[in-house]
Structure formats: C-alpha cells, structure tokens
C-alpha cells in the first residue's frame, strides 16, 4: 500500500494521512493509491502539513508498517528514548523498527 506522511506545519509532529485528516498514529494510515502526490499538494497548500511524501507500507498483525526503517523510526519516535516515543509502556518498542 501507499501511505502519505509529513510533519505538522506548526508543531513539527510526524503525521500520517488517515483519510479524512491527519493522525499522529501510523496505524491510522490509509492507502492513498495514486492520489498521494495530489493530496500532498492540497494539504501543503492548506498549511496543514510540510514536507509531505508518499511511502510504501504493508499491513501486518501489528497494523500498518512503513517499508523503510527510517519511516518506521519516524512512526515510533527515537528508539533510544522510550519515554518519548509512541509506545512508552513497551520496553521493547525499539525492536519494532528493525
């Protein structure tokens, strides 16, 4: 599947296109098919996102998983600061990106 990601213009937070808006959770991502580039342009023009780009991802038992490690780290947060990533109660969360 193709999913769309970028950073919130104001906060800089990593965000994922969820179909009807943006989410902080990669698991909310939806397949944008061939419309990702158009969506990125529209959303950037609306000042809701900066640096939007389309990536490959798959759906696994744990939810949507970006194909590349860089995007998996973007999805999780820094693997060396479990207190600051999106799975603060999971000591092994860093393994998810490998």
């Amino acid at each position, binding site marked *: 599947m193709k999913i769309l990601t970028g*950073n919130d213009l104001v906060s800089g937070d990593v965000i994922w296109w969820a179909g009807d808006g943006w989410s902080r959770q990669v698991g909310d991502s939806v397949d944008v098919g061939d419309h990702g580039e158009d969506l990125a342009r529209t959303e950037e023009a609306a000042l809701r996102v900066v640096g939007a780009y389309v990536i490959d991802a798959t759906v696994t038992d744990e939810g949507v998983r970006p194909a590349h490690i860089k995007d998996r780290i973007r999805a999780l947060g820094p693997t060396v600061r479990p207190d600051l990533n999106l799975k603060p109660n999971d000591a092994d969360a860093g393994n998810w990106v490998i």
Partner: protein
Amino acid sequence: MYRYDSYDQSIVDARVEEFRDQVQRRLTGALTEDQFKPLRLMNGLYLQLHAYMLRVAIPYGTLSGKQMRKLGEIAAKYDKGYGHFTTRQNLQYNWIKLADAPDILAELATVEMHAIQTSGNCIRNISSDQYAGVSADEVADPRPWAELLRQWSSFHPEFTYLPRKFKICVIASDDDRAAMKLHDIGLKLVSKDGVIGAEVYAGGGMGRTPMVAPQIRDFVPEEEIVSYLEACLRVYNRYGRRDNKYKARIKILVHEIGVEEYKRQVEEEFAHMRELGLNPPTEELDRIRAFFAAPAYETGLSEAIDRADPAFALWVDRQVAAHKAPGYAIVNISLKPLTGIPGDASAEQIELVATLAEQYSLDELRVTHAQNLVLPHVRKADLYAIWQKLDEAGLAEANLDLITDIIACPGLDYCALANARSIPLAQKIAQRFADAERQTELGELKLKISGCINACGHHHAGHIGILGVDRKGVENFQLLLGGSGAEDASLGQITGPGFSEDGVVDAIEKVTDIYLAERTDGERFLDTYRRIGMKPFKEAIYG
C-alpha cells in the same frame, strides 16, 4: 568572556524580529515552504526526522553560567526537557514548534546568544580549543581571534552564499584538542621571533571525501590574519564548484587544482588585499582581547587534593587536567554515561552545570567537540564538592578519552539524513566495555560513530571509527581504524566488509584484544596500529 556591545545586540535583536515576521508569514501562507526554508535555515531551524530542530551557536564553545542556565530553561520550557551538545560545540533542541522559534531566539538574545550561521553555505560558528586561556602550553588565548573572526564573518555580504558551508577553527597549542586540521581552514597561533601570528591550514574536512588540511602558510602576522582569510575565501568563492554540492567544499578545490596553485592564487589575492588596507584596526583586536584577559586568580592556594574517596580519586585521575595557574585545575564533565546518550543533557543537568560554573569556575564553562563540558577555572580545594554534585546528577563518569567516551552523531534516531542509528550502537559498545579497569587498561582510545557519510560523528578521525550505512533497508556498520583528529591527524582506513550492530561490537572487541596482545610499553591503540598496520587486526576480525 566577550560581551556584546550595542552594535552586536542590535544586530541580534533585529534578526529575531525579522525572523518573527518570516515565521508569521509562513504560518499565514504568505510564504511557501520553498521560500521559507532558506530563511529558517539561516536562523538554525531545520526540519528533522520527528520535528523542527533548532541549532544554537556557542561561539568557540565558551559560555557563562547565565547563558548555560538559559539553555536549560529553554530545554524545559520549549523542548522535552533536554538538549544535545554537538561535535561543533553547539547545542541542538530536537522538539521545537515553529511558532515558538522566534520566542526562543528572543530569549537567547537576552543572554547574547543566537542561532545565526549554524546552517547554510556561510562561515559557520568558529570552533576552538576547550582549554583556551587555561592551558600552559598555548602561545596565546586563541579566543580573541575566534571572536574577531566571528565578527568579521557574521553577515559578511561576500561570504553569505559560498559554494558550500565553511568551518574555521583556531587553536594556539601544539596539542590539538579541536580537530583543527579537519576544518575548511585551521589556524594555529604561533610565536615567531616574539611576534604572534598563525600557521594556516586549508582544505581539511570529513564528510564523504575526508581530507587532512595541508599547511598553506607557515606564518601570517596577527594583524593580517583577517585579510589573509579574506583572500582564502575569495579564491574559494570564485572557483569552488557550485554545480555539484558533493564537490563544493574547499577541500575539493584545493585537491583538484593542487595545494601549490591554491597557495599561489591566495598569495596573489592577499597582495591585492594588502593594497586595499582592509586589516581590522589593531584597537579592535585589543578591545576584544581585553575581554579574555586572565581572571584574577587567587594566590597561595593549596595544591593538595584529598584522595581518600577512591571513586573521587578515579575521577580526578581521569577528568581533571592541569591548569596554568597554581592551585587551580580544569574539570572535564563527561556527557557519556554508560547507558546514556552521548552529548545529551537534561534541563536539570544543564542548570546544575550553570550553577557549578558560577560557584566554582569564575562563571565560565566550555563545550568540547567531543560532546563533553569543561569547567575551566576550578580551585583544587573545590574538586571534591564539585564531584559530589556531579555524581548526584549522573555526571561523574570517569571516562575522558577512554573507549566509552564515544562521539556519536544523533543518527537515524533523530536525523533525516542518517542511514543508521548511532546512539544504540554507542550504548552497546559502552556496556560491553563498561568495566572501569578494562577501560583504563585499554587507555586512550577515541571511538567515533557517524550514522551516515556526512560524518558528523567524526568517524574518519576515530582511533576506531564506525560508519553506519543502509544496505537494502537494513542498518550496516563499516569499521575504520587509525584515524586521529589531534595534532597527529590522520584518516581511518576501512577494515573490510561491514557488520550488523552486534557484529561490529564483537569486531571492536577483537580489535582491542589484538592491541593488548601486540602493544609495547606506553603505546596507545593508535600507536600500535600505526606500527603494526591493518593486517593483524583484519585477520582477527575476519579470520
């Protein structure tokens, strides 16, 4: 320390207000990201992997307690409670909101700080020796020249759009603690027949094409240093490549046209500069120099250090260096706790170090390119009290220049350019070699990790260097041996095929085993490597 005059302050204040307007225009859509990006980068604001990142300049790595306290306050108020000290002696905040950036810069301006020239193709923040002014072996304090160059280079209209970024370092000792020869231009202050001047090195750097800078002049009198650098920059600005960013640094120009031809052109330009009479007035250097006059050290202080506490004694032996003034010492504060993140400090730790600087170090501290901190003026009688406070705050690691004193870039945990994570690897290595006796047995061993070819972690200059690469979406690590950023500068050589994260830790252990088996009395790891070469290490690693 240098203090802003009204001109310095008005420049910085005006820049804050200019950026506030630019941010507002971006937030209302009057500026597109393409239009805004170069403006935010000129103010140190990057868009990184997780958020906006703000890089704050710490000129030549020198800070007052008040400035350090402000850095801690900003970390607590605007970030997630910590900051990251970099190999450029700067500080980075990882979680900045765009709308907050002008307020942060305004707060920095209240303590004479800014984020100017921490990005872009300009002359970047000048770096220097963390022992400047307190080392017995320097010919002069290099910081007045660094400050003069800061003023000369700030918003220099001719050098605001260079072919590529440009890094200058100034030192004044035979011992190079600042990786001077790995800068675009390195200056080493020397004394010749009683006159202060500089040896000049040009075309060094790391990145994808590492080079040790060759000397291009053995002496430039102090009053002509700025003019000579102007000539160096002019030749680079005219002929440096703008068609390919990977070949745009001055090192490529010097390499492609040759050192002799570059020197010839610089001398030609320098002769022209002399005719123009553009040397800064000596009164200005004298004015700046007065800010760096040696403080009024107390006399009659005791040289004794009570070493009854063994943990304290271990720390003193490793972290405390000789000071030029009797009864004083230089304290190195490790930002490399064994399970921590190299260079990171919490807001509370930053606040503590600010307080220690004010109470015990004549209100001054330094940041090192090895991502540690220094209290430069400490009475020996105060060492135990300082150690106790550092220990309570998790800052009393005794590992300066040992294998666990690892330089590591933020890597793929934070950096949008990185290919692999540096920090988890640094932590694994630190834990493998955690035993204090084992570290001491290995002695000076500088280990440096970069998460990509841009080499922010100085891997080329590590006695042991590690470069993270992306191999079909999987992190892989190349191992290098034999680099040095010191006065004996050299570039590390790749051992061979790369490793997984665990594999490279095992390989390092084999490398250190060979060193222990082969070394002769007094040899550091680097000395042994240089004597016996790569072959035995390679055989041990790859079998």
